[in-house]
């Protein structure tokens, strides 16, 4: 589905990703974690062909080089939502419908098919009753589910999620992760997600990658969830321990 081979990527003279290699297979749930500025969002944008590859090769669903942008039609993307204005006049339905715009092409308008799909996607994320509500007045968790519904428009094969749980309360985080897990397990959707909170995805992710410009480790959680490795990545004390048969991660002074 995705393959990075010795990829260096960045903007202009600034290299953000250095020598990154990994492969995501179809149907996998892959999570990248790392501190701020580690290149997590850039990695997703490189998959989308938005960031120039300076060295190495990126292959997305069989497309390589400049052809990578052709894979966008098969990708659902949930960007970090700092660019959205909550006072913008848009209902939840309007926002989901925007997910069909790129496939429609210039000048074409969404028709009955796209509108019906938008309603179906809202149902899928459990928000059909909020279709006509202004997007800006929904709770943070509801807004993220609306954006997830938008990413699902057009039946993507791959879902790229950029810190979808940021600024959500614990229950909203958990609901959203449940929804994403269900999409991965029940519908076979390949998911690549970047996050700060590894605990949210333990027991769900097939693979975890630690990114800090370059990939520090990549593999199944049971192999890469390691106190020493995480402490090195985050440059602070990190403890990995088992609780109820699942690995948990605590950052900071855990002796206090």
């Amino acid at each position, binding site marked *: 589905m995705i393959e990075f081979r010795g990829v260096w990527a960045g903007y202009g003279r600034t290299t953000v990703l250095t020598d990154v290699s990994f492969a995501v297979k179809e149907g996998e749930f892959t999570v990248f974690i790392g501190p701020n500025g580690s290149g997590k969002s850039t990695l997703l*944008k490189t998959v*989308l062909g*938005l960031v120039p590859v300076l060295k190495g090769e990126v292959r997305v669903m069989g497309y390589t080089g400049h052809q990578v*942008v052709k894979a*966008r039609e098969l990708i659902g*993307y949930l*960007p*970090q*939502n*700092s*660019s*959205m*204005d*909550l*006072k*913008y*006049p*848009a*209902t939840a339905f*309007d*926002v989901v419908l*925007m997910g069909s*715009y*790129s496939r*429609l092409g*210039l*000048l074409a*308008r*969404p028709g009955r098919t796209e509108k019906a799909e938008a309603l179906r996607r809202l149902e899928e994320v459990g928000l059909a009753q909020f279709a*006509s*509500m*202004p997007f*800006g*007045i929904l*709770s*943070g*968790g*509801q*807004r993220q589910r609306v954006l997830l519904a*938008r990413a699902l428009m057009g039946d993507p094969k791959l879902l790229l999620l950029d810190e979808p749980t*940021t*600024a*959500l*309360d614990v229950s*909203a985080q958990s609901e959203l992760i449940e929804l994403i897990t269900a999409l991965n397990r029940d519908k076979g959707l390949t998911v690549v997600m970047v996050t700060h909170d590894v605990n949210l995805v333990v027991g769900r992710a097939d693979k975890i990658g630690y990114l800090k410009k370059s990939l520090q480790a990549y593999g199944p959680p049971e192999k890469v969830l390691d106190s020493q490795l995480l402490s090195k990545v985050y440059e602070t004390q990190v403890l990995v321990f088992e609780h109820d048969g699942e690995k948990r991660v605590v950052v900071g002074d855990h002796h206090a």
Partner: protein
Amino acid sequence: MLDFLQYGFLQRALASAVVIGFTCSVMGVFVVIQGLSFVGAGIAHGAFAGVALGLLLGFDPLIGAAVAAVLMALFIGYTKRQGKLNADASIGISFSFALALAVLFIGLMPGFNADLMSYLFGNLLAVDTSELWFSLGLGGIVLAVIALFFKEFQFITFDPVLAEASGLPVHLLFDGLLVLVSLAIVLSLRAAGELLVMAFLVIPAAIAWQWSTSLAPMIILSGLIGTVSAVVGLVISFYFDVPTGSSIVLLLVALFFVSSLLSTRSWRVPIRRGREGEGKSEEQ
């Protein structure tokens, strides 16, 4: 009303008010939702400098206005995109620059130029047939482009990041939007003047925002508010013998205050929440 319409100059003024009121109020929606209310002032001052240059050098002032307004729009778009300055500061710089140029060109003109002042304050009642056709033609083009690219403009103004990821030429479309705003200003300058244009670009959209949950209805409502205010303001100015521009702006401001009192919009979306992520405390 019938005696009002028996005069040719009033018929032209009315038609001109409808075109200007509708076009500027429609473009005003994009200005207001992008938080660029000051952009109208920046571009209008640029257009005014173009008018002054045209009058100084002896070419059509409207051509000068169009070129200067478009250049100003592109400059604002460029500086906003560079991210080194926020939009407010870049508009402020272009505003001052344009005003300084306008004053310089005026200073170089021999004597007082009444024609120049008419571009600053406008005169709906002095619109001639060719100016009316100019406004109608340009207004038609601006509105047609908005209708054709509605979904693209909606996408780039709501979520530029995803719009770019979807392959849309976000910067080109944003510049295009600013150019459309500048054309709306140019088509209105002669009849409405710089000051009234700025009111049309902000107030109807601000009122429409209070009653709209979707972009398309907001655009239609804003256009209608601008049109009705222009017509009613013109009729008031005729019967009460007061300046047309003032009566339209005062009517718009009065409508805004009434709307603010009646609308619950400000309660539903607290201003302090601002952009996503800043409003962590708003989590439900």
